[in-house]
């Protein structure tokens, strides 16, 4: 791995140093480009998967849609046009043309039109639902990340003490509880057995949405349980990975070196913390992607009108354009955040930056 250098001086002119820097920049640029292309290919693959899923649906809903329109007295040409607006393609063409038509619509960011909310575009519905999910999961993610990282660090440093054991057990226990179990338990305990929080809906129907205290207060009190359901079910994962990360960094030679060089305790702590957090940041960025689809259980239990809720209701309403559009958006969010995580890693880890060239 490490090549030994010759014992003689290693002269390096300023020109060569500038060269090296330029090479490194080009390397980062190339890496960035490659990642973006890979992400685009991935989005194309997911779109293809979605297309064939809609195709595999039992009972050919696209044809059914067309025939329904006909039976309502719509002229065939008009019915074809409307079906194309709804699904992005019609089933009268060869599959290749259908696929091409579907992709062409997607390229224009057109996800089709909802059936259950008749006349409303899928993009519109999806964009209206997304903020609920983002707010819910982002707060849950931040709460669990902060708690988990803190507890994990303490558990690692005090791993031979009672406190360390206790924290580790708390992590393993919570890590083992699936999200829907957590959601149901929290809902049952805190809205039925001890009714301290309101149940269901993102805010009381009595308050008027807007910038008023009643609305915001209602939003917050309705969000507490869902946010904690999310936070508690992901806390264990953060806690356990932070613990193992800190334990492994504490065993690194440079940590002992820092101690034997008499660095301030705070500086030593910074060294350990930064190295231990590094791998977790990438996971954090990845989680941002999974949050779009990751709160489906919680949204379902607490009747929260986010993307997961939209996906479920589209299925029970047999609103397939809405279903495939929501699914596509959820997946694209994952792909984009993978890309983000990758770039973030390049940015914060000098070793990866070095490899790029």
């Amino acid at each position, binding site marked *: 791995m490490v090549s030994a250098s010759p014992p003689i001086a290693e002269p390096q002119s300023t020109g060569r140093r500038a060269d090296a820097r330029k090479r490194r920049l080009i390397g980062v640029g190339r890496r960035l480009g490659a990642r973006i292309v890979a992400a685009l290919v*991935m989005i194309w*693959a*997911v779109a293809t*998967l979605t297309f064939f*899923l809609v195709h*595999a*649906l*039992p009972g050919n809903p696209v044809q059914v849609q067309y025939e329904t329109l006909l039976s309502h007295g719509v002229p065939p040409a008009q019915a074809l046009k409307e079906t194309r607006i709804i699904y992005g393609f019609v089933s009268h063409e060869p599959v290749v043309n259908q696929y091409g038509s579907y992709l062409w619509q997607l390229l224009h960011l057109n996800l089709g039109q909802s059936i259950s909310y008749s006349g409303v575009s899928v993009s519109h519905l999806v964009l209206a639902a997304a903020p609920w999910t983002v707010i819910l999961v982002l707060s849950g993610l931040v709460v669990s990340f902060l708690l988990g990282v803190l507890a994990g660090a303490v558990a690692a440093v005090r791993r031979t003490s009672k406190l360390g054991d206790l924290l580790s057990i708390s992590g*393993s226990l919570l890590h*083992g*509880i*699936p*999200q*829907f*179990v957590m959601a*149901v*338990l929290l*809902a*049952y305990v805190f*809205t*039925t*057995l001890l009714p301290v929080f309101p*149940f269901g809906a993102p805010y009381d129907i009595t308050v008027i949405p807007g910038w008023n205290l009643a609305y915001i207060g209602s939003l917050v009190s309705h969000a507490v349980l869902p946010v904690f359901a999310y936070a508690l079910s992901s806390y264990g994962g953060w806690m356990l990975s932070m613990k193992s990360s800190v334990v492994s960094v504490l065993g690194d030679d440079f940590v002992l070196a820092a101690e034997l060089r008499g660095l301030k305790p705070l500086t030593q702590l910074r060294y350990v913390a930064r190295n231990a957090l590094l791998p977790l940041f990438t996971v954090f960025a990845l989680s941002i992607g*999974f949050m*779009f*689809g*990751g709160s*489906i*259980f919680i949204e*379902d*239990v607490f009747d929260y009108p986010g993307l*997961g809720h939209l*996906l*479920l209701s589209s*299925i*029970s309403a047999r609103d*397939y354009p809405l*279903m*495939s559009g*929501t*699914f596509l958006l*959820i*997946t694209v969010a*994952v*792909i984009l955040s*993978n890309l983000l995580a990758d770039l973030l890693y390049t940015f914060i880890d000098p070793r990866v930056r070095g490899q790029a060239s």
Partner: protein
Amino acid sequence: MLRTPGRVAGVVIIVGFAVMGLIGPWIYPHNLPVNANAIYAGPSLAHPLGTDFEGTDVLALLVTGARYVLLSALIAGLVAVVVGTTIGLVAGYLRGLTDLGLSRFTDFALTVPGIPLLVVLSTVYRFTSPYMMGVVLGLTGWGGLARAVRSQALSLRERPYLEAARGLGLPLRHILWRELLPNIAPYVAMNLLLAVIGSIYAETGLFFLGVLPAQVNNWGVMLNLAVFSAGAIGSPQALTYLLAPLVSILLLTLGIVLLLDAVDEIFNPRLRTL
């Protein structure tokens, strides 16, 4: 293997659920009796875990529901492990274009979020059969293992004994299954158990969401009916009805985790000496 009480408990839990799954459908009638006079009855001798919204015995629901859960989770775990290990080994050992293709495929499988995909798939397939459910769950859950096995295969292939095997011109099949696999077997065994846990969560979760047909008897269905149809979540009397499937899921997971701990110790010499 059975030295510590924890592991004994783990084995007891798993054997207990397995027995439930095996004999459950025999000792209870196919259609469990309903009793309009005993709706949300508390625990009693006749109904140790109380009754549900129709007066059906909760214990009976639990026992008859175990088979679907266990069977599909086991199948899902096996499918995920076989697919993941094969793809990981082949990609890591062959490298080159094969690796590139398989790795991209793995990335793709890892990228598509599992639960939303399963929810969408539920509109295509009706998962009334636990076998079908297991296969589909397995086919959506092999990505992580494939990636991990690939990186292990990448490092193992540089070992002298494998270079020797290559030098001797042994067939690929022999190298993959006889030389490489035994080295990662402990890892694969642990991942089988982890995949089983993941599958239990995923399938009960799916049934809980109500996107799958409620005709089958399954803990997830129990929970779905309790929370969304029967309003048990708003009724303090329904405590045992609501808790029974939840606790079963957690207990089964606990049993597998305890077993995992035992497997870890058997295969990990570093832990064994401690």
